[in-house]
């Protein structure tokens, strides 16, 4: 096949999962769990294959192509197609999404098998894979879109999947409603971001006259000089969208709660792919952002502050998935900071490696959680929270494979050479050191915290001796779960090759989309410094948490030296409480005020008041209608007399 034929395959990356999910919906589990799982996984895998074919085609024709399926909306000047864009950036994202996605699908076959049994609703197995395929389709739509509106479809679509999958066990969680509430929170917070994106789209349409990427981007320099205000507004509203989808400050609050979803969901959606959509959006809109320094600065600082902020919170968490959630927020902060600074390749590089190691960490955490659950069952111990790290410990011996893969993921996250995370994060930090001193130092501190919480987590989960019966009886997971772990571990370990200093494969690959950007440097001093910082962080983490195991009820060892700062970390710096106080409570009160005193009390009462006024008047007139025929006759004659009087007096 020639390249154009290969490019024409692009829509199939979306269509294949859609077809698969329709089949699963229709047969709705009648063919058993295996069928549903394998069908969904092979759909993801097929998408991956198509992505590879597209990548091969791009190898020979790096300029890519646009494949249109037909018109979507065409009114007046507004013309939007269902068009798929094949270029190096989008195909790279496709590869990541479908690649990691396939692994997580496979992992889910076994994981969900156990999960539906534990939660007592076997029928929901198929539903899970339907949602997962829907997610793959939406995410593929997002990354392969050729215009902003179609991207928005994917953008909201992934938000929907996130909502559905967070609330997958909608009758579970605290009070039975916590999971559903978490899903709602995620969707609404995302919608606030989407509001920003939508307004940005309006601005783009009215200032550029089109929503199609190429047209918009080619006009970007002109518009930015002619209407700097509009351009700045576009970037800032987009940033709002980014903060919503990528869980950046101030809209990060939904992601930790999103951990209510099954672990593969956390891995795929809330770590590897969906949350990086914001980074992709900025990278995709690079031609606009690069024209608006103000917007870039805003993006950079949002990312930078989030990176540090979330890293500190991660340190104070005891829930194995919450730690990873805040870690994700923090790592995306790095990427956002990078795209803000214009280091698009570095950001993409980190996006890829992050997908590997964070996906790995989540999957491994899932393996740990199920292992503890199995242990709980085997030991007939009392109900414990299987995600509470204080109940674990010593799992290194019981779960060797999980431990080693987790270790590789953790070290990669802590940016220890020569693992993938080291190279990608170093590229960001190095770029910052050359361009933004303040950003550089803050990212460095965040990196230290990262290492610290990784050390803390590994120590609490795997080292020492079991702190609960359940942990003592935990057993290693099945190969369906461990094989994806191993594959991801390999990727997390050697993913750095992609953009290894000196080789810069990714950079040359993406140059076709971004144009020639400043080549990334490898600064030895920065690299060694941050490596040292990472090692020190890990060591401190191990020193504190490896030697004195934390138990339920006992204060955290960091509590004493850090005091109220640690209280803040533990309580997520009270952001949820502040939002509750500042936004949610007033909103509820206002809504109640509208619903009660205003709507029923005033508007409705005015209407009813008119009615009762009429009734009162009628009541007065009604006195004449006394039911006595002769009275009526009297009034008639009175009228007659009046008329005659009129004729006399006339």
């Amino acid at each position, binding site marked *: 096949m020639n390249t154009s034929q290969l490019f024409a395959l692009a829509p199939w990356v979306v269509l294949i999962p859609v077809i698969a999910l329709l089949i699963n919906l229709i047969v709705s589990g009648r063919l058993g769990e295996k069928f549903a799982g394998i069908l969904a996984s092979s759909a993801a895998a097929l998408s991956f294959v198509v992505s590879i074919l597209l990548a091969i085609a791009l190898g020979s024709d790096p300029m890519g192509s646009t494949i249109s399926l*037909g*018109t*979507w*909306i*065409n*009114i*007046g000047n*507004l013309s939007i197609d*269902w068009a798929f864009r094949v270029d190096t950036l989008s195909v790279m994202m496709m590869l990541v999404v479908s690649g990691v996605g396939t692994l997580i699908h496979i992992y889910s076959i076994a994981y969900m098998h156990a999960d539906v049994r534990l939660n007592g*609703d076997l*029928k929901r197995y198929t*539903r899970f894979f339907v949602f997962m395929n829907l997610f793959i389709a939406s995410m593929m739509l997002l990354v392969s879109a050729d215009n902003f*509106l179609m991207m*928005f*479809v994917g*953008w*909201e*679509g992934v938000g*929907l999947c996130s*909502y*559905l999958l967070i*609330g997958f066990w*909608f*009758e*579970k969680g605290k009070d*039975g*409603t916590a999971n*559903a*509430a978490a*899903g*709602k929170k995620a*969707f*609404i917070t995302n*919608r*606030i971001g*989407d*509001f920003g994106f*939508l*307004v940005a*789209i*309006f*601005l783009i*349409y*009215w200032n550029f006259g089109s929503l199609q990427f190429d047209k918009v981007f080619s006009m970007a320099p002109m518009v930015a000089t002619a209407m700097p205000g509009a351009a700045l507004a576009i970037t800032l509203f987009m940033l709002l969208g980014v903060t919503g989808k990528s869980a950046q400050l101030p809209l990060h609050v939904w992601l930790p709660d999103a951990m209510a979803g099954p672990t593969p969901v956390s891995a795929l959606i809330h770590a590897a792919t969906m949350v990086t959509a914001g980074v992709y959006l900025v990278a995709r809109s690079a031609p606009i952002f690069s024209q608006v320094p103000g917007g870039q600065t805003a993006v950079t600082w949002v990312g930078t502050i989030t990176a540090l902020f979330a890293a500190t919170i991660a340190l104070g968490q005891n829930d194995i998935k919450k730690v990873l959630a805040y870690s994700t927020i923090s790592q995306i902060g790095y990427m956002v900071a990078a795209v803000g600074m214009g280091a698009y390749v570095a950001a993409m590089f980190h996006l890829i490696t992050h997908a590997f190691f964070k996906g790995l960490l989540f999957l491994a955490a899932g393996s740990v959680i199920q292992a503890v659950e199995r242990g709980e069952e085997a030991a007939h111990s009392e109900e414990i929270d299987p995600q509470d790290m204080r109940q674990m410990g010593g799992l290194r011996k019981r779960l060797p494979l999980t431990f080693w893969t987790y270790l590789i993921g953790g070290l990669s996250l802590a940016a220890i050479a020569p693992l993938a995370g080291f190279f990608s994060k170093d590229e960001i930090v190095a770029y910052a050191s050359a361009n933004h001193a303040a950003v550089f130092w803050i990212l460095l501190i965040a990196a230290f915290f990262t290492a610290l919480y990784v050390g803390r987590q590994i120590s609490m989960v795997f080292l020492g001796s079991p702190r609960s019966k359940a942990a003592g009886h935990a057993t290693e997971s099945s190969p369906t779960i461990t094989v994806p772990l191993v594959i991801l571990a390999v990727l997390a370990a050697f993913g750095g090759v992609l953009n290894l200093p000196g080789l810069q494969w990714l950079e040359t690959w993406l140059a076709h989309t971004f144009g020639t950007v400043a080549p990334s440097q490898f600064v030895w001093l920065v690299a060694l410094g941050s490596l040292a910082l990472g090692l020190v962080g890990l060591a401190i983490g191990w020193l504190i948490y490896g030697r004195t195991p934390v138990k339920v009820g006992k204060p955290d060892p960091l509590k004493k030296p850090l005091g109220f700062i640690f209280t803040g970390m533990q309580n997520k710096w009270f952001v949820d409480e502040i939002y509750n106080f500042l936004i949610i409570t007033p*909103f*509820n009160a*206002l*809504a*109640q005020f*509208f*619903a*009660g005193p*205003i*709507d029923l009390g005033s*508007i*409705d009462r005015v*209407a009813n008041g008119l*009615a009762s006024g009429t009734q009162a008047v009628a009541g007065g007139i009604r006195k004449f209608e006394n039911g006595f025929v002769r009275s009526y006759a009297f009034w008639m004659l009175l009228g007659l007399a009046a008329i005659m009087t009129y004729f006399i007096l006339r």
Partner: protein
Amino acid sequence: MNLGSTPLIWVTFFPLAGVLIILFLKPEWKKAIRWTALITSLAVFGLSVWVLALFNAANPDAQLGVNQAWFTLGGNQISFHLGVDGLSILLLLLTTLLSPIAILSTWKAIEEKVKGFMIFFLLLEVGLVGVFLALDMVLFYIFWEFTLVPMYFLIGLWGAERRIYATLKFFLYTMAGSLLMLAGILFVGLKYGGFDLTTLTSTANIPLTVQMWLFVAFGLAFAIKVPVWPLHSWLPDAHTEAPTAGSVILAGVLLKMGTYGFLRFNLPLFPQATIQAAPYVAALGIVGILYAAMVAYRQQDVKRLVAYSSIAHLGFVMLGLFALDQLSVEGAILQMVNHGLSTGALFLIIGFIYERRHTHQMDAFGGLWKVMPVMGSLALVVTLSSAGLPGLNGFVGEFNILVGAFGSKALGSPWFAGVATLGVILAAVYLLHMFQRVFLGPVTHEENLKLKDMSLREIIVLVPILILIFWIGIAPQTFLNLIAPAVEKLLSVVSAAGLALV
């Protein structure tokens, strides 16, 4: 007259054939009565598809006209003038589609006085179709008022506990508005050259101050019907008390009579007043969007919640109409249809649940998705369509309205659309709130555990709506092509008048 060439007469009055048959059926023959009504309404739908087949989308004018002189008033001819154009074709199809759906939904719900119910329902369909097809102001008014009577009885006889209060409120509110309209119609007709809309738009040259007064007279009637904030307080009561089929038609079609009225009368007849009033009407629309969304959020009764959501959705339509932009007006017309589909479907689902549990209180539900997976999934799709999820119908309408309003010259400021876009967030807030309280969470009531999932009939009722929800979401061009030329012509009338104003 050759009846074969007058499809509009057929489509308007065919339900009367069903009424005639039902009149001769014994009240005890419920099955026969239901089937007669269903087949009649299906035939009407078929006839409307015939109309669609004859309809030439490229022609912006009224087509397939029937024009028969009727009587004269003050020397002005009043005629029986029907016609269909891009502004009305979609609403015609929506009406004829929702009617059989609503009738099918009553199979189990209406057991009492089935005969009367079906007769009133078919009469209602005559009125509704007539409203959308009438091109003579007096004829329009007759159909407009005619819809009141069957609806009054549908709510008053088959409604819930407070039906009498609700139906009276509904009747009086709408009546008050339409009297003003009648005065306006007579004034325009007698003073400015006749009652025929097609000739009026081209010849009437009404001075600006008179236009303003007439705009208010007509506008109030339509605003009550829409309803525009703050004239909405009849709607929640009427919806809550109406039987399911009544709510479906009320939300799906009756409210559109108001927005359609703005489109058919206020915009083309009083273009200068429209331009002057546009920011204020749009502002009322936006207040409606935000206010109704917040009020909806605090409701305990599902039907009331959806009723308030209607006010919010129609706020979008009003914003779109008065942004006077090609994008926004087309979006608004499409959104009328979307709202009919999504809200209609929501009411159907609520009705299905009501048949099982006999309550609308959200406290009584929770976790129903676990018990009724199919209904939960369909309800989810419908809820999301109402919330404007891209890929479903609601988004296309809302997006076009907002993007058009954002750059609208008539409004003159992007703030209108910007603030209205907040409504998208609020829609998610109250709709997900509803979905969570009804379908998610644990099952808290014993009796909910044994609820049966949807029956085949119920699925058949919803499937046409679902197909359209996806169709409009993914390929709205099919429908937009029908309305584009008419909207273009309408806006050229308005903007020409706007030039004269400057």
